[in-house]
C-alpha cells in the first residue's frame, strides 16, 4: 500500500533539549514514506510527543535536520491532540471549518469540504451540536474531521484515543483504518499502547525513555483491511508479544 520510494518525513540526528535541561530527544532518526502508517511507541516522557511536535513545526529541534511537509505552508499537516481541543463556543461545523477559515478559503468550497469531513467521521447528524453536547468519542471524531478538512498529506496523532474507554477506542481504531485506506494519507501515530500500535500500524518505532531514541523498528506485515478478526487472531497476539518484549527491553535500557 505504501510507496516507499517517496519519503515524506525525514528526521536526522534530531536532538531536543528543553530550557529546564531535560533531554527529550537525542540523535533521533525517523523516515516515513508517503502513505505509510507508522506508530511511535514508548512510555510517557520518552519524547515521542516532542518528536511529533517537531515534525509539525510546533516545536523546533535543538539539533539535527528535519524535513517534512510543514515548510510547504499551512494545511499540509493535520494534527490531532490528546485532548479533542475544540472551541467550546463553536458547533461541530464551525470547529471543523476553522483551518479553512484561517486560510481564507473560498466560502462555497469550504462548506462542501466541511460537510464531507464531518460525514467521513460519521457525525453528519451532529454538525450543529456544541462540543459539550457530545460524548468523548464524538469530540475526538470532530477533532479528526478538523485535521482532515484541509486534505493534508500528513496526519499527526498524539495519543488521540488515550483518554477514551476501550469500546470507543476500538471503534475509533477501526474507523481510523477505514479512513486511512480511503484517503491514503501518511499517518504518524503516537501511543503508549502496544495493542493499539500493532493493530493500526505497518511499522512501529519503539523508543527508549530519557533521552528519546529509536530502540527498534518493527514491521507489522499483516494485510489490511484489519478488523475484529485480526484483533483476536494468534498472529496479532504474536506481534503484540514481539513488540511488548522490545518495549520492555527499551525501558530497561538494554540493547536490541
Amino acid at each position: 500500500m505504501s510507496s516507499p520510494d517517496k519519503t515524506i518525513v525525514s528526521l536526522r540526528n534530531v536532538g531536543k533539549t528543553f530550557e529546564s535541561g531535560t533531554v527529550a530527544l537525542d540523535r533521533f532518526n525517523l523516515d516515513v514514506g508517503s502513505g505509510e502508517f507508522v506508530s511511535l511507541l514508548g512510555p510517557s516522557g520518552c519524547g515521542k510527543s516532542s518528536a511529533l511536535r517537531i515534525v509539525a513545526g510546533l516545536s523546533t529541534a535543538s539539533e539535527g535536520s528535519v524535513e517534512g511537509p510543514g515548510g510547504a505552508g499551512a494545511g499540509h499537516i493535520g494534527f490531532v491532540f490528546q485532548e479533542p481541543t475544540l472551541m467550546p463556543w463553536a458547533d461541530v461545523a464551525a470547529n471543523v471549518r476553522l483551518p479553512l477559515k484561517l486560510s481564507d478559503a473560498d466560502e462555497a468550497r469550504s462548506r462542501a469540504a466541511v460537510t464531507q469531513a464531518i460525514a467521513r467521521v460519521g457525525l453528519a447528524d451532529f454538525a450543529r451540536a456544541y462540543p459539550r453536547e457530545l460524548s468523548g468519542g464524538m469530540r475526538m471524531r470532530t477533532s479528526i474531521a478538523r485535521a482532515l478538512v484541509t486534505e493534508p498529506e500528513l496526519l499527526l496523532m498524539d495519543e488521540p484515543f488515550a483518554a477514551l474507554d476501550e469500546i470507543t477506542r476500538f471503534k475509533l481504531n477501526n474507523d481510523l483504518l477505514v479512513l486511512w485506506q480511503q484517503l491514503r494519507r501518511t499517518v504518524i501515530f503516537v501511543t503508549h499502547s502496544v495493542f493499539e500500535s500493532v493493530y493500526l500500524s505497518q511499522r512501529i518505532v519503539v523508543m527508549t525513555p530519557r533521552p528519546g531514541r529509536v530502540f527498534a523498528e518493527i514491521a507489522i506485515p499483516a494485510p489490511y483491511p484489519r478488523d475484529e478478526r485480526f484483533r483476536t487472531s494468534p498472529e496479532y497476539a504474536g506481534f503484540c508479544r514481539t513488540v511488548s518484549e522490545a518495549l520492555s527491553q527499551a525501558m530497561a535500557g538494554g540493547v536490541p
Partner: protein
Amino acid sequence: MSERALRIGLPVVTLALVVLAWDQIVRLCAIPPYVLPGPGLVLATLIADSSLLWQSLLVTLTITFEGFLLAAFGGVALAIAFNQWRLFEYSLYPYAVILQVTPIVAVAPLLLIYLPQPLAVLACAWIVAFFPVLANTTLGLNSVDHNLIALFDLYKASRWQVLWNLKLPAALPQMLAGLRIAGGLSLIGAVVAEIAAGSAGAGSGLAYRIAESGYRLNIPRMFAALLLLSLAGVAIFFVLSALSHLALRRWHESAVRRER
C-alpha cells in the same frame, strides 16, 4: 413546591415580613417621621415627589450608563492592548492597580476641582468600573487552551486571527463576569461623585437628592431616593446577567442547565 417557586417566593415573603415589622415598630413606638418614616410614608413620598425623583434618577442612570460604557470599552481595549504588547502591560498595569485601590471617595473631591462637574462624576464612575473589566478580560485572554494556540500556529494564523477567533471568544465568560461587576460599580462611582459634588453645591442626581434631603431633614425623601437607587442597581445587575446568560447559554458550563 418547586425549587424555582421557592427561589422567587421566599425572598418575597421575607420582604413582606420586614416591611410589616418596620411598619408596626414605627406605629407602636410612635417614631416621628424625621427619625424613621414608615413604609407607607416612604411610598407616599415616592409618589408625591415622583417627577423630581424621576428626573434625578435619569441623571444618575445616564451617568452610570456612560461610565459603564466607557469602562467596558476602555477595560476591554486596555486588556487587549496589554495582551498584545507585553511591554505596554508592564508599563501601565501597576498604575491601573493604583487607580483601583485608591478609595474613590478620596479622589472625587480632587477630580471636582480639575474637571467640570458632569465630567468629574463621569470620571469617577469610570475609574471605579473599569478595573474589574480590565482584570477579568486579561485573565480570560491569558487562559486560552495552549493546544488551541498550537493549532492556530499550525495553520499559520495571524495575530489578529488568534485574537479575534480564539482569544476574545475564550475570554468572553470572564469578560462578561467583569462587566456584571462593573455595572454595579459604575452606579457606586456615580453616586460617590454626586455626593462629593453635592456638598460643593452642584448636581441634580439621585445621590445629590439624598444629600440635600439629609440637610433638610426630609427623611422620607431620603428613603424614597435610596429605594430608587437600590432598584436601579438591581435592574442593572439583572440586565447584565441576562445578557451574559444569552451569550453563554449554548456552550459555557456556568450558563448550562444541568439535568439531575
